[in-house]
């Protein structure tokens, strides 16, 4: 019998419950609620789960199931947020309720999409012009965007976009237009368009305990 709870994210309203391959071998995902806020959890026997590719993928799969199949908003947790008990979990749901509420308002009805533009090695491209063209196409459609790390000098652009569900098609079309745009030496550029993800990049909440 395990009493620790691995948390995937926070939902508002009706509880979520389904069977799936969950983190650490669990097969049931369910919801622990405090008032209208619910933590989507599965059972686990540690408060310090090991970080494996498989479990990271499962964590993300659970969020996708909730977002894509059920079209529910979920405030995503970072990997590894395992709680001692239902009590400690409800304590945090209660204590951090305003922060969860605000995060929920920010992301409700929205998804995250990622765009990386990579240039071929030795290709001479005008980074600024490309960035300006991308901004012109995508910023008006996106609700918000954030830059990500340019971890390679071949990365011309690396951004995450928060997009309303209803604007998703328009966004797909805009990316297709950018990719087809001959003015930007598209032969030398590779577009990596990824997602939809839970809006990880648009919730920045840290909860600590005063000791």
């Amino acid at each position: 019998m395990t009493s620790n709870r691995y948390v995937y994210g926070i939902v508002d309203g009706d509880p979520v419950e389904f069977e799936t391959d969950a983190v650490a071998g669990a097969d049931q995902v369910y919801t622990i609620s405090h008032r209208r806020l619910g933590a989507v959890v599965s059972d686990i026997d540690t408060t310090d789960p090991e970080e494996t590719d498989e479990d990271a993928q499962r964590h993300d799969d659970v969020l996708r199931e909730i977002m894509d199949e059920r079209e529910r908003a979920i405030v995503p947790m970072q990997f590894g947020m395992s709680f001692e008990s239902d009590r400690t979990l409800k304590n945090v749901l209660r204590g951090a309720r305003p922060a969860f509420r605000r995060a929920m308002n920010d992301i409700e009805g929205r998804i995250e999409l990622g765009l990386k533009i990579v240039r071929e090695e030795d290709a001479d491209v005008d980074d600024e012009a490309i960035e300006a063209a991308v901004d012109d196409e995508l910023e008006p459609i996106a609700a918000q965007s954030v830059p990500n790390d340019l971890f390679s000098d071949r990365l011309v652009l690396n951004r995450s976009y928060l997009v309303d569900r209803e604007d998703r098609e328009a966004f797909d079309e805009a990316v297709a237009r950018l990719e087809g745009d001959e003015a930007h030496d598209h032969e030398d550029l590779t577009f990596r368009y990824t997602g939809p993800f839970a809006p990880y990049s648009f919730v920045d909440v840290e909860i600590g305990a005063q000791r």
Partner: protein
Amino acid sequence: MAQPQRRPDSSSLAEVLDRILDKGVVIDVWARVSVVGIELLTIEARVVVASVDTFLHYAEEIAKIEQATAEGDLEELEELEVEPRPESSPQSATE
């Protein structure tokens, strides 16, 4: 004719790991295991700006205060913020 669309790729583990290990809500281990007597501290960086209008309004209000301070026009600010209260008068203090 339908517009050409580009479907995003949802299968990249690297993209998932970039996000899941680095972003999302973080809860300190003490807050996850302690049952009694803990006070939660929440740090929020608002990534999503409410709206440009709200921001401009806010910026305008800040500018007004800064301007008043710079001009030494503090009387106006005091009028705004400090209401004379009977209980803080010298008389009641000596009672």
